[in-house]
């Protein structure tokens, strides 16, 4: 007797939970050959709104954690990703139509990228911050602080896992919380990454993953008054100029789309893009 295949229901990842879309919609995820792979939740604007609420409530704890602790938590993601690499390799092979070696290389690079960014958590402040010389008896220091809730349109091309990791990891390093719209055509590794995040030490709400149509969801995130920054890295095929304009209404920080092989390469600047420099004056103590 043949065993019945138990296929997985791919849901959203919001506030540490895995809800279905409030709209009840799903869409078919197809393999590179056009075969049916799975039904993924087709997130709506209200799912994005719920995700922003979750991200906002998680912000205080995540931004308030010590940099050392954030680094440990991010490193732990890499550890757990390593443990589930076969699942990711399978999903990438099915979705993207690459062979095992290429898929495996992508997972390796994604894991290494988590480690690379995790290392920056307790170092980027030393590099980007400064003790400023001023003409008076004052200590004057500038330190980068997290911008807040960052909405990200994940890269929509090939390398679905690596693209997603490259987009969300730098925002997390500084203590921002994230709402990310996953790769529309290859969302499976995004939701599986959500499962990794849920079982690692990342507090619920720090990363929120919405699958579905970026064209439908992005305008709501761009205009949302409780989103502080917008990373349009994967929005190259959208009307991203319009998104920038609407983001300007609420003074969001915005990163433009990137395309090609060097999109969202690991860089200190990606971390600093979502920080605000705070400068403090303090009288020098009288000894």
């Amino acid at each position, binding site marked *: 007797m043949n065993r019945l295949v138990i296929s997985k229901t791919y849901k959203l990842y919001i506030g540490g939970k895995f809800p279905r879309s409030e709209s009840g919609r799903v869409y078919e995820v197809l393999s590179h050959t056009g075969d049916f792979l799975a039904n993924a939740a087709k997130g709506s604007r209200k799912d994005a*709104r719920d995700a*922003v609420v979750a991200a*906002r409530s998680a912000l205080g704890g995540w931004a308030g954690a010590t940099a050392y602790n954030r680094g440990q938590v991010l490193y732990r993601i890499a550890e757990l990703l390593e443990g589930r690499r076969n699942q990711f390799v399978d999903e990438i092979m099915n979705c993207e139509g690459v062979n095992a070696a290429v898929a495996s290389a992508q997972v390796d690079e994604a894991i290494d990228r988590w480690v690379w960014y995790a290392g920056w958590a307790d170092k980027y402040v030393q590099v980007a911050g400064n003790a400023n010389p001023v003409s008076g008896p004052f200590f004057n220091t500038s330190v980068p602080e997290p911008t807040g809730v960052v909405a990200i349109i994940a890269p929509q091309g090939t390398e679905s896992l690596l693209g997603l990791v490259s987009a969300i990891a730098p925002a997390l390093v500084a203590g921002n919380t994230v709402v990310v719209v996953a790769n529309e055509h290859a969302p499976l590794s995004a939701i599986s990454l959500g499962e990794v995040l849920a079982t690692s030490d990342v507090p619920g709400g720090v990363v929120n993953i919405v699958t579905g149509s970026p064209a439908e969801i992005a305008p*709501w995130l761009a*205009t*949302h*008054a*409780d*989103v502080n920054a917008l990373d349009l890295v994967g929005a190259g095929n959208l009307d991203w100029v319009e998104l920038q304009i609407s983001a300007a209404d609420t003074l969001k920080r915005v990163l433009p789309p990137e395309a090609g092989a060097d999109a969202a390469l690991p860089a200190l600047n990606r971390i600093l893009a979502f920080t605000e420099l705070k400068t403090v004056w303090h009288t020098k103590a009288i000894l």
Partner: protein
Amino acid sequence: MTNSPLATYQPDQRALALIGGEATDANLRRYLHGIPGIDAVGLEARAFDLGTRSIKTSSKRWAIDTIIGLIDLTTLEGADTPGKVRSLVAKALMPDPGDPGTPRVAAVCVYGDMVGSAVTALGSAHAAGGTDGVTVAAVATAFPSGRASLAIKLADVRDAVAAGADEIDMVIDRGAFLAGRFGQVYDEIVAVKEACRRADGSMAHLKVILETGELNTYDNVRRASWLAILAGGDFIKTSTGKVAPAATLPVTLSMLEVVRDWHRLTGVRIGVKPAGGIRTSKDAIKYLVTVAETVGEEWLSPRLFRFGASSLLNDVLLQRQKMTTGHYSGPDYVTID
């Protein structure tokens, strides 16, 4: 509407006629325990069902503005200061400075010693018995526990009324109620009602807080509602907000049913105020639906229905901003309180 002979009685005689004698423990117990019991499963199913209505677009906009106009904006903290009350009043008068068209709330609700500050801060916007403006409600009678002697409770009420409170939110003695001393609860409400009389003979409105979270059963809630109405309460209110669970939809529904029955019996309209635990517009809209379906839309007026809430207003304002601007708003765009 009503053919009952009760409608023709004077208010103070009505209760006695209904109970069939003086308001003694025995008479009240016979009457209150004679009220049919509540089908708890049926009540909860009905409340859930009323909560599933979909209220969208123009109806939602109407609902949101109605909710704002029904809110008793409340601050009941040990740390309340005159400054905090002033900022509460400022918010009551102008809930959303970004949109001056936003309606005012119905009342501000404060502790008795803060009534003076609230009245001063309201100035000419104080309704003071009129229909236009914001009223001042004061919690009294050793709120929230109600554990004090009657003399102290009455002094508490007189103080607040003398300071200019338009409405008194009293708590019943839950201990006496649960012990079956219904006569004592009844007499206290009657005495507090009398203490609501101002020097000029007019009366401050009396809201009777049942603290349903401590009454344990729906049957007790129904009995306490009848008791409060019989004793002369103008409003019945679910909770102090200091005890969990506070207001729930089934509890409010059961109280509304008593109010409906009383109206059929006597033609008198009693108000209902769910308080505590209502934090989102979505929840508040469920209450509007329940009120309209149980006692009628006529009750959706500040005279007959209020929300006791503090954080609800901010959520309603966020929804209102979303409907006005077309994009989601955030907590940075409403006041922190």
